[in-house]
């Protein structure tokens, strides 16, 4: 039984079935967002059908490098995560909170924002479901709810795709956030390319997901289909070689605010903020007020901000974190250590974006490993078990 109480009545559909799925979502008034190839990367944008998907394409990702390549099996989802995460559709880069006009002595606030359109995300990876769950916790779970995020999230239908071909930068297995989706989706697909057949095992994860599948041209899943899907996940897990250390990581980071490694990474870091922008869980924002020349109109917007920016820690008299090493320390210790204290989870889901999209290839997993290693050496030197 799934979390929603639904039996796991998985179905199998072919490319025409996937096309029908996209059409059915659109027919239900949803804007469908999915992976498309643009500017040398797989990005997320509106799709009208399976012809928009990057068929037969894959990615080669390393620290500081991302390249597209062909694959010979015609897979529609044969790549890992791209530069963008779904964050940009739920927790938008720039959000107008309100507009106001002065009319005589009165201030006229624009009516409350419209209900966001119903949106379907197609191709959400397991690590990204985990990231969305984390943002739900951060932006909806406390006393102060991000109302814009809440409105969009309520209108979102999630079609997950289990990973079969992780990038070299991936490490979801370290966080138990993938490669297979376990919850948080409406429908989860596994792309099956077996014996010349091209099919998708579709598992419902919600009532609306089950209702959607019932509407599509499918056939019942067989034991062979389940075995093929399990093999996809097993292959993906086996091909993931990057590791984020977990044992003692939180304690080590929190115990060593003056560790020489901070200066070491501070020397390599550009403080350009790319890692925080591509991270699917980084949620920090700033508020900007704009006014019009005539003094009659104004607006307040919320924009993604980054702990790598000097302005971010600016308080009366100057910035608190003037050195890059303290900015990197803030980011990494928050993500991997303080996040546990604050939200009961790590802030990292192992998607590897911060590694691939760092222009100089700084690897958070390698940095974490270096801290744990040096801490072990320190303990050994002091004869502590």
């Amino acid at each position: 039984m799934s979390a929603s109480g639904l039996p796991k009545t998985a179905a199998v559909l072919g490319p025409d079935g996937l096309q029908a799925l996209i059409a059915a979502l659109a027919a239900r008034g949803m804007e469908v967002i999915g992976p498309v190839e643009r500017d040398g990367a797989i990005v997320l944008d509106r799709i009208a059908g399976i012809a928009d998907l990057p068929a037969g394409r894959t990615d080669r990702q390393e620290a500081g490098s991302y390249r597209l390549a062909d694959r010979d099996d015609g897979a529609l989802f044969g790549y890992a995560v791209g530069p963008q995460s779904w964050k940009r559709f739920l927790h938008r880069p720039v959000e107008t909170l309100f507009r106001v006009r002065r009319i005589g002595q009165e201030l006229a606030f624009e009516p409350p924002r419209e209900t966001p359109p119903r949106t379907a995300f197609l191709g959400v990876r397991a690590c990204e479901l985990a990231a969305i769950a984390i943002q739900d916790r951060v932006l909806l779970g406390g006393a102060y709810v991000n109302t814009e995020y809440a409105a969009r999230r309520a209108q979102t239908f999630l079609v997950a795709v289990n990973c079969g071909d992780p990038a070299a930068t991936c490490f979801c297995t370290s966080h138990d956030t993938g490669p297979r989706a376990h919850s948080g989706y409406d429908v989860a697909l596994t792309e099956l390319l077996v014996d010349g057949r091209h099919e998708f095992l579709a598992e419902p994860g919600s009532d609306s997901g089950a209702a959607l599948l019932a509407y599509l041209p499918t056939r019942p899943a067989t034991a062979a289909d389940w075995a093929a899907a399990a093999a996809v996940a097993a292959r993906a897990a086996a091909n993931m070689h990057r590791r984020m250390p977990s044992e003692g990581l939180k304690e080590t980071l929190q115990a060593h605010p003056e560790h020489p490694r901070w200066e070491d990474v501070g020397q390599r870091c550009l403080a350009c903020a790319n890692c925080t922008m591509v991270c699917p869980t980084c949620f920090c924002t700033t508020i900007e007020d704009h006014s019009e020349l005539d003094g009659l109109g104004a607006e307040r917007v919320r924009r993604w901000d980054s702990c790598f920016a000097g302005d971010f820690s600016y308080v009366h008299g100057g910035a608190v974190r003037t050195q890059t090493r303290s900015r990197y320390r803030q980011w990494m210790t928050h993500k991997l250590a303080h996040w546990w204290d604050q939200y009961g989870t790590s802030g990292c889901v192992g998607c590897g974006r911060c590694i691939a999209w760092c222009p100089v290839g700084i690897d958070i997993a390698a940095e974490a490993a270096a801290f744990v290693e040096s801490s072990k050496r320190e303990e050994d030197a002091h004869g502590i078990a």
Partner: protein
Amino acid sequence: MARPRLAVIKFASCDGCQLSLLDCEDELLAVAGAVEIANFPEASRAVHPGPYDVTLVEGSITTEHDAARIRAVRDETAVLITIGACATSGGIQALRNFADVGEMVRAVYARPDFISTLATSTPISAHVKVDYELRGCPIDKGQLLELVSALLAGRRPVLPSHSVCVECKLASRVCVMVAHGTPCLGPVTHAGCGALCPGYHRGCYGCFGPAETTNTATLAAQWQALGASRRDIHRAFRTFNAASEPFCREADAHG
């Protein structure tokens, strides 16, 4: 309330930045309605004497005469805003700082004895106190309107000092350095242009000058890994903001 009196004063520069004001087109009437344009020779022959509430200063200081003139401009204005790479860092003409000016003058002018110039091109801030600066070669029209609007409303202008990378990511652009291997100065360059060049699949060439925090040495090493030569790196840092300290230092390291 009386409209603030605005002056636009030019030093060594190409006029491109002050033309950004005339380039406002849709907003130009609103600007003219919000401020009294008291001294803007590029726009009107009617030049009214100071003092002014706000002065936009374009260009760098390259002569003794201009060094004296900027002090007079400062004395006559309440708020002084430098606009563009020339005014904020010395501009492309600061390449003279790394060469023998006398030799250049003799090479260029038929009568070098007519030329009276300083050995260096320096930013306005090297001579007088500057209240706000707008970067870029040329400046961004949107930033100019933002600053003028903020001054009129008495609020803090929104002029972030972070890198161009943030603007690329806000605009959903794919990183040209990571995805294409194109050397880009975005990670060390001050925001404000809206990541214009990467939007056209070009590397940022740093016309807004250094960001608030820069690590040019690490970026230069990555450029080398992508195939850039020492000369490429030297020349990349020696353009419109050549005299800004971080760019000057990095160019020297690859000289």
